[in-house]
């Protein structure tokens, strides 16, 4: 009964939310045929000024991005999430498998393949030994390959999760699962949850910024930074490092900033009158957002401009202003977090190394891709460290799944390049910064790197841990939708205690 009541209440609320003034007028014209009826139908709404009758408005009603305290002590105030879209091969980067090298080019044992599904592999593929040279680094002795020579020096700054697993083996669903906690559309992304829960520090910038590189947005589309059933103000704002940072941000030709201000003031005056008449807090939120957009016009181009950065910074990151690159995005991520942005999400496309062509080959294409990622990521960590930002910024790195220890045999044929198929049973991710214990390697995979055999970690566990570091209990942080409370981790997720400082 209780849940039925809740559903009815939610239905009524949603219906009201969708009922704009225009709908109402239209309804009146169609069904009643006269505006005269309006006051009668709205009854309690019209004539009284709700704004002055002590309507209890929270700051959240007026400004959906206004800050809220975390329920528990937070270790991090911001997150930079580096998503390598397409899924990089853990077997060439972090998960060193000397045994696999011994069986290179031999048919994979049937016991490995039984009951498993692959995106492209058919029949019995051959095993593919690691194509990179591995060595141990730092006091922690973490294994990092020569595909990432710069990152090798940062081994003691990060905490590796070597046995992450996902139940999705196609890009779209896997990216959705990784970013929203569900392989199906319609759930809010991590960044949306976090900005919904905490608001944002800088009221002149969006709380959740998305930067993409690699020439393509993720396969799952913009839903990976969508707000799902949360109010749309919490969705990620995509900014570009090339051209206008935000589309349509610049004033049109012939429109001066003063004129723009006048327009916004006029709209706000009308809205204010509307609010006085109806007392709907949504109107106040709208007024606030017009003003924020106006302020953003100045602040966003400023923070998104990397032309004036010192030479040393450009050398550190390997940045090249005016282009769209992962390096530029890494530098922007630091600048945005420095300016009080809550969640910066980077997507770098081009890690899908099936071995179908040169760019998608494990020994060449992947190496090129690593070269473009190695320096910027290492630079980002160093830069955050030297500015003291690593104290309260959480950095997460990973793809949506891993890759097979077998050579891909698309359509059963031998391929001309070395490549690996999608694989969700075991892959590597790492975290660093706010609240993470540095220099930990958690989890272990079998001798082929096919499955996790110790300390396995699910995508939900990662979400639980991220929320924990931001000051939430993932089981308590819910949003009422369709008659039940929803969580980022749904009904799963365990804290990864071992990597917490």
């Amino acid at each position, binding site marked *: 009964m*209780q849940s039925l009541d809740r559903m009815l209440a939610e239905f009524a609320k949603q219906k009201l939310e969708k009922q704009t003034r225009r709908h109402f007028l239209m309804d009146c014209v169609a069904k009643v045929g006269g505006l005269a009826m309006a006051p009668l139908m709205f009854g309690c709404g019209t004539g009284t000024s709700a704004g002055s009758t002590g309507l209890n408005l929270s700051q959240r009603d007026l400004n959906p991005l206004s800050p809220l*305290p*975390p329920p528990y002590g937070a270790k991090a105030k911001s997150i930079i999430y580096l998503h390598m879209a397409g899924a990089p091969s853990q077997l060439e980067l972090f998960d060193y498998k000397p045994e696999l090298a011994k069986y290179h080019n031999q048919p994979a044992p049937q016991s490995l393949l039984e009951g498993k599904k692959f995106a492209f592999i058919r029949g019995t593929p051959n095993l593919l030994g690691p194509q990179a040279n591995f060595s141990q680094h730092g006091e922690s002795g973490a294994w990092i390959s020569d595909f990432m020579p710069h990152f090798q020096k940062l081994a003691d700054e990060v905490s590796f999760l070597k046995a992450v697993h996902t139940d999705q083996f196609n890009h779209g669903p896997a990216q959705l699962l990784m970013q929203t906690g569900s392989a199906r559309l319609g759930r809010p992304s991590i960044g949306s949850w976090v900005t919904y829960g905490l608001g944002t*520090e800088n009221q002149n910038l969006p709380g959740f910024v998305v930067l993409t590189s690699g020439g393509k947005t993720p396969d799952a589309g913009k839903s990976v930074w969508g707000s799902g059933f949360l109010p749309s103000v919490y969705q990620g704002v995509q900014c570009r490092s090339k051209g206008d940072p935000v589309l349509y941000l610049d004033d049109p030709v012939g429109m001066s900033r003063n004129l723009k201000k006048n327009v916004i003031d006029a709209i706000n005056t009308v809205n204010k009158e509307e609010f006085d008449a109806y007392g709907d807090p949504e109107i106040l939120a709208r007024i606030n957002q017009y003003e924020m957009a106006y302020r953003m016009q100045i602040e966003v181009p400023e923070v998104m401009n990397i032309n004036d950065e010192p030479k040393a910074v450009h050398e*550190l990151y390997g940045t090249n202003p005016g282009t769209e690159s992962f390096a530029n995005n890494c530098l922007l991520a630091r600048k945005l977090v420095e*300016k009080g942005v809550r969640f910066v999400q980077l997507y770098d496309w081009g890690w899908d190394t099936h071995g179908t062509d040169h760019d998608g080959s494990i020994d060449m294409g992947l190496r090129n891709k690593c070269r473009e990622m190695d320096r910027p990521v290492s630079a980002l960590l160093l830069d955050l*460290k*030297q*500015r003291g930002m690593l104290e309260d910024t959480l950095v997460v790195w990973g793809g949506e799944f891993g890759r097979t220890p077998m050579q891909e045999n698309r359509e059963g044929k031998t391929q001309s390049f070395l490549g690996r198929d999608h694989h969700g049973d075991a892959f590597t991710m790492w975290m660093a910064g706010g609240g993470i214990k540095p220099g930990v390697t958690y989890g272990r995979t079998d001798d082929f790197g096919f499955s996790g055999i110790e300390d396995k970690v699910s995508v939900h566990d990662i979400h639980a841990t991220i929320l924990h570091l931001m000051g939430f209990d993932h089981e308590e942080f819910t949003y009422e939708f369709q008659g039940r409370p929803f969580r980022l981790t749904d009904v799963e997720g365990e804290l990864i205690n071992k990597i917490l400082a």
Partner: protein
Amino acid sequence: MIDFILPLFGRFHPILVHLPIGFLVFGVILIFWSRKNITTYLPILSLSFFLGGLFAALASISGFLQYKNEGYSWDTVKIHLILGIITAILSLLIWYRMKYSVANPKALKLQGLGLLVILTTTGHLGGNITHGDDYFTEVLPPDLQAFLGGESGIAKPLELPANNWEEVEFYTGAIQPILDQNCKSCHNPKKLKGELDLTSFKGIHKGGEDGAILENGNPEKSSLYSRLVLSEDDDDHMPPKDKRQPRKEEIELIKAWIESGSSEKSKLGDAAINVSMVEPFFKKDEKPFYPVVEVEKLPQDSISKLRELGFFAEIIKKDSPFLKVSCINFPAFSDADWSLLLSAKEQIVYLDLTGTAVTDSILAQIATLPSLTVLKLNQTAIEGADLGKLVENKNLKLLYFNDTNVSFDKLGALDGHPTLEKVFAFETPAADSGSSSQFTFHLETGNLSLPVLATDTIVY
């Protein structure tokens, strides 16, 4: 047919007990009230002691019946019952003496006071049975409770030694502490809700009014486990919805104990449990980042006011008095604006003045913030002349002045700061000087770089 009479009469005990209290207290007051002309009041006095004694006797009888019929243990009611009977006898004795011998005011006063003491003790013990013996202490501040000693309200949470947890006895060392913390307040020998005692191995194996609560090796069929994992809305869910709920890990341990055969003597190491199950109970000597002091909470109005002034202001976590303040949208903030922050002086633990117009003279003001833990002065005109003032901030842990004109010689003033852990001085003369004195804090001078490698330019 009349079996019910006795238990019914027993149930009148809580009503009857108040009558002797009223009569007898009234009687004792009257003894003192009457002063020298006690004879005038004698009829009323003797009546009140007679009625007091009579009802005390009835209360004792009904109390005894209740003890017999309602499942109280003898140990619980023993002293209460004996004192109740003594109260009845003494009252009647006093009445008898008043009636049949000459009243001696002095002796009466003494007898009255003695009776009052016994009466109060009896009443208090009775209250303990119904309301629990922590009825008064429960509402006291925790410190005072600890000072008064005895049993404080809640048992301590389970803690296990990290190095030899295998040797801990599963029942005594883990299960009983969990039950003590979560179940004891209702299921103890005194309260026995549902006729269940969860404070001893015997009690657990005996079960409650619905029979056994344990089926060895089968947690799903043992209500000691299964009722814990029911939905909170379920009427059978335990502990009741409004009470403290056990942690997931605690429930898991109970499950594992039942699975392992729920024996009394086995060790944690003998059961099929791994480290991850007991790890959450390992003792952690984690020091909280922000200070642990009692500070008054700032009213929400004051926080809103700070926001209206242009500050980012938010408490560090729900229900905490401590405040995080940043000038991220208030770049014009200058030394003269300090007074705007005075209302939150006690509460500020995190102050970010990055990019504002403050100068060295603000440091003397900042030094007056007692709880300040993180201070950011990046991109300001600070030169560090007054940096030594920050020694006054007894909780300061992180200090940032990246991109300022602070020179190396100014840092010495902070050497020996008892709490300061890290100082960030990237892009300052201090960092560029290349000097490397050892301080009690870690000095981050930055200028980190990545080498140029041959592989940086090789395209495969």
